[in-house]
């Protein structure tokens, strides 16, 4: 065999090597630290992955880059190993994700800063959700606990909703693209849903990494339908949350934000009706009090008038009493009746007597 080695042209050798690689390792996952990261002509991305013992080149086109990358980050790349026609061996990257807490956090912070600089988290971009939506779109894994919690709560709280659910993966490499397709699907409907909800229950930072994907964050930000995102637990913050119109802490919280609680509304409706009853009673009381007050005022006025008249009457009675002839006689005066002429007879009345007398002398005063 050594005496008769396979004789190939260079091109044949490269093709055969690639064929062998395709057969033996069609896809490999490689973990390493990024070094010499660069983007050429705004189109091509190249970097090297290294560990303590070796280095390998990686290559991808810029639109495959789903997050900012920096030297020093630890990445897992899913790639096809290739030998190119210039004799360089590289990994043609199909997908990649940061590995380890430090790199996940670094990738998150870099993308957060980038999107924030573009104003994607600005409060003025946030749209209000309808108080009581009728048509709702949901993106979730229908097998997940988060989705089951979400449905349980909306069913408990409200009724009459028309909910369309897009079942997608919500973790792992395919998840962001599936969710993006679902966002595009709902946004292309002839009659748009009123709210687009994306929910996923809790998980590790790596599980939730799909929600820190740049194209997904942009798709949420560009959605024509107002968005409500509830991912993970209270403490989890994802970029999908930040670009959404409304952030919910959890899927349960998303359901609570989405629809009001029917029991509260029923209670409030009865309370409002009862409050009108109280207002009615109060109005009747006020009316009665006012009427009573008016009647009292009328009685007081009548009493005042009566008092005035009685007082006047008493004065008149006193005056009349003083004019009474009996009283004059009692004071020692006497009445004279008859014509006072010489020789005439007149009658003289005192308090106790009546006498007749003859006029003997008349003198003019």
């Amino acid at each position, binding site marked *: 065999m050594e005496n008769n080695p396979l004789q190939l042209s260079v091109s044949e050798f490269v093709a055969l090597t690639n064929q062998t690689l395709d057969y033996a390792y069609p896809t490999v996952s490689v973990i390493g630290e990024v070094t010499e990261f660069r983007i050429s002509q705004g189109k091509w991305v190249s970097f090297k992955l290294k560990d303590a013992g070796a280095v390998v080149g990686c290559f991808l086109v810029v639109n495959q880059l789903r997050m900012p990358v920096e030297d020093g980050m630890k990445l897992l790349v899913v790639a096809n190993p290739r030998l190119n026609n210039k004799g360089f061996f590289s990994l043609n990257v199909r997908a990649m994700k940061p590995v380890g807490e430090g790199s996940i956090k670094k990738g998150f912070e870099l993308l957060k800063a980038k999107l924030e600089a573009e104003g994607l988290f600005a409060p003025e971009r946030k749209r209000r959700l309808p108080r009581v939506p009728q048509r709702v779109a949901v993106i979730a894994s229908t097998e997940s606990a988060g989705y089951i919690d979400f449905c349980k709560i*909306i069913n408990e709280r409200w*009724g*009459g909703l028309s909910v369309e659910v897009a*079942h997608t993966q919500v973790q792992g490499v395919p998840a962001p693209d*599936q969710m993006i397709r679902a966002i595009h699907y709902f946004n292309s409907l002839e009659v748009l849903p009123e709210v687009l909800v994306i929910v996923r229950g809790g998980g590790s930072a790596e599980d939730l990494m799909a929600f820190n994907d740049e194209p997904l964050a942009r798709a949420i930000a560009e959605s024509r339908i107002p968005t409500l995102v509830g991912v993970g637990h209270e403490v989890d913050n994802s970029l999908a949350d930040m670009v959404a119109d409304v952030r919910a802490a959890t899927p349960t919280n998303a359901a609570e934000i989405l629809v009001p609680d029917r029991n509260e*509304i*029923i209670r409030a*409706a009865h309370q409002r*009706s009862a409050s009108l009853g109280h207002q009615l009673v109060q109005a*009747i009381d006020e009316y009665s009090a006012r009427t009573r007050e008016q009647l009292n005022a009328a009685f007081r006025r009548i009493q005042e008038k009566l008092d005035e008249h009685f007082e006047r009457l008493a004065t008149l009675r006193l005056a009349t009493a003083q004019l009474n002839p009996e009283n004059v006689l009692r004071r020692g005066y006497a009445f004279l009746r008859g014509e006072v002429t010489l020789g005439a007879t007149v009658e003289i009345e005192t308090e106790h007597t009546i006498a007749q007398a003859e006029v003997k002398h008349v003198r003019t005063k």
Partner: protein
Amino acid sequence: MSEQNKSVQEKLTELSELVAWFQSPAFKLEDAFDKFKQSEVLAEEIEKDLTKLKNDIKVVKKKFDSEE
């Protein structure tokens, strides 16, 4: 729109209007009792409507695992 066809939202709005009427200068004691009775009927209907409503949740048939 007939009474039968009013949505919960419309009934809630109507109840709000009754509440507002009680606090407005248009309030008249002569009409208040009828308005109060209307509010009681609305509250009852809202309770009945909300209790019986069910959500319609459908998973769309379209698959999202690849571009079509």
